[in-house]
């Protein structure tokens, strides 16, 4: 099948972008945003039809989409009701994903993206770039953190979906009630759990926030399955 593709740089670029595009969709779907099945599993031919110019180059301006959180995700991210706060609001919201074309990333581009995300009431923004951010730009991401969570992925890192690798076990995000139940069951304090870093590739894939707990389910030769828990720090 690969043989009948025109073997030049243009189509390589298309294939790269198609793979990143798919991985981003899988990532957003795995975070339990609402996405249709055929949006996630887009075939290369359809991708070429929809997002390419007639001359075969990708129309990057079209590579952007948004998604709304599903009901189960909203439930997961709602803090438990307390007497002082009987009707809590979920701390997640719609997500905005964009492939950016700039050749260099400074504070200016980041601010522009953050401004767009915040002014359109998105709670999370994912920017996919093909060059790394400048150090100052990376630091400036922290300043908008309480308005919107801006995540940045390199196109190169999205060519394959890391969670599909056989050595990566399944990570499941726990809801707040599940976390409280876990801590009660094992009579632990939060800090006594094993930890996972926020910059861990899987943590970045799932968009973990500080204080969330993931359940990691491994296959065990002796026990069949083995679950361990990690607190995101």
């Amino acid at each position: 099948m690969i043989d009948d593709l025109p073997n030049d740089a243009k189509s390589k670029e298309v294939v790269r972008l198609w793979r990143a595009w798919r991985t981003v969709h899988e990532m957003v779907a795995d975070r339990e945003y609402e996405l249709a099945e055929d949006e996630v599993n887009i075939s290369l031919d359809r991708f070429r039809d929809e997002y390419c110019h007639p001359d075969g180059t990708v129309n990057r301006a079209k590579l952007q989409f948004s998604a709304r959180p599903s009901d189960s995700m909203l439930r997961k991210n709602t803090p438990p009701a307390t007497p002082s706060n009987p009707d809590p609001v979920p701390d997640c919201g719609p997500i905005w994903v964009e492939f950016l074309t700039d050749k260099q990333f400074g504070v200016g581009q980041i601010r522009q993206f953050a401004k767009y995300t915040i002014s359109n009431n998105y709670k999370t923004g994912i920017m996919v770039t093909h060059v790394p951010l400048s150090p100052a730009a990376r630091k400036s991401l922290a300043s908008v953190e309480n308005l919107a969570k801006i995540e940045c992925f390199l196109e190169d890192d999205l060519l394959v979906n890391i969670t599909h690798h056989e050595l990566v076990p399944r990570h499941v995000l726990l809801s707040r009630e599940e976390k409280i139940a876990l801590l009660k069951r094992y009579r632990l304090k939060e800090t006594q759990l094993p930890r996972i870093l926020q910059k861990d590739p899987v943590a970045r894939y799932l968009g973990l926030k500080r204080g969330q707990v993931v359940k990691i389910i491994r296959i065990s030769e002796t026990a069949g399955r083995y679950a361990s828990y990690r607190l995101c720090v």
Partner: protein
Amino acid sequence: MANQSGRPKGILKDSITPSGDSKQTAREIAIHHATLLQHRKDLESQILDSVILLSEYPLVREAPYSSANPAPSDVSDFKANVRLFQPSDYDDLIEERNVNDLCGYTLCARPRRQTGGGGEWKLTSSGEIVKRKELEKWCSQICARRALFVKVQLNETAAWERAGIPDIQIDLLDEDKSTETEADRTARKLGELKLDDQRQAARDSAALAMERGVNGITSSMDKVKITLKEKDVTAPSEMASQVGNANTEDHLLIDGHKAKIPEEEMKDSE
């Protein structure tokens, strides 16, 4: 068992119950460390703001001024903002300026050099082989020199450890003061005055803090209470006076001890 309350008795020692006093001090320590962290964060964001501000300099780009002879207002701003930088922050600034397509030297308005396509390495006119990335940071060799001249004056120490120190001064390469006009001189003087004012303010606030008995943010908790206590030195003097009194029998002493032989025995033996 015999335990009346019905609860099994643990074999571990009773844990020390925190009294109200230790809770109070724990709270104070926590607040102290929180303020320290906040102070650091504030400084970091201030440095980030400086980087972003300086990444668009120089503000004055008209004809008489160039990177060799920058506008005095820009110079004073640059010096004031770059004072708290660590060398790594300065590298960030250079990169940020390059993103804005400017020469890495803050007071240079020219675009950075574009050497066109090609590999990772580049042959310079002097015959050296350098990384293309290094070469494209600057507009010319002289600007690279000027920028690195500033970089070597920066301090590796973390910003929060020297934020209060007023004596950090950054000089520029080949600052020539002979050709400047009257207006430039006043502008430069104004810039120096501004720095002097900051220093004076820092000194004044330090003096005021000392007067009030308030210590600086870093030194308030690190103190150890010291009480000086004189050590009484008395032991050897007694011995000396004894020896002084009995100096007629010095020859009978063995290691300061006088053997007592009963007198009758002495007589018997005679």
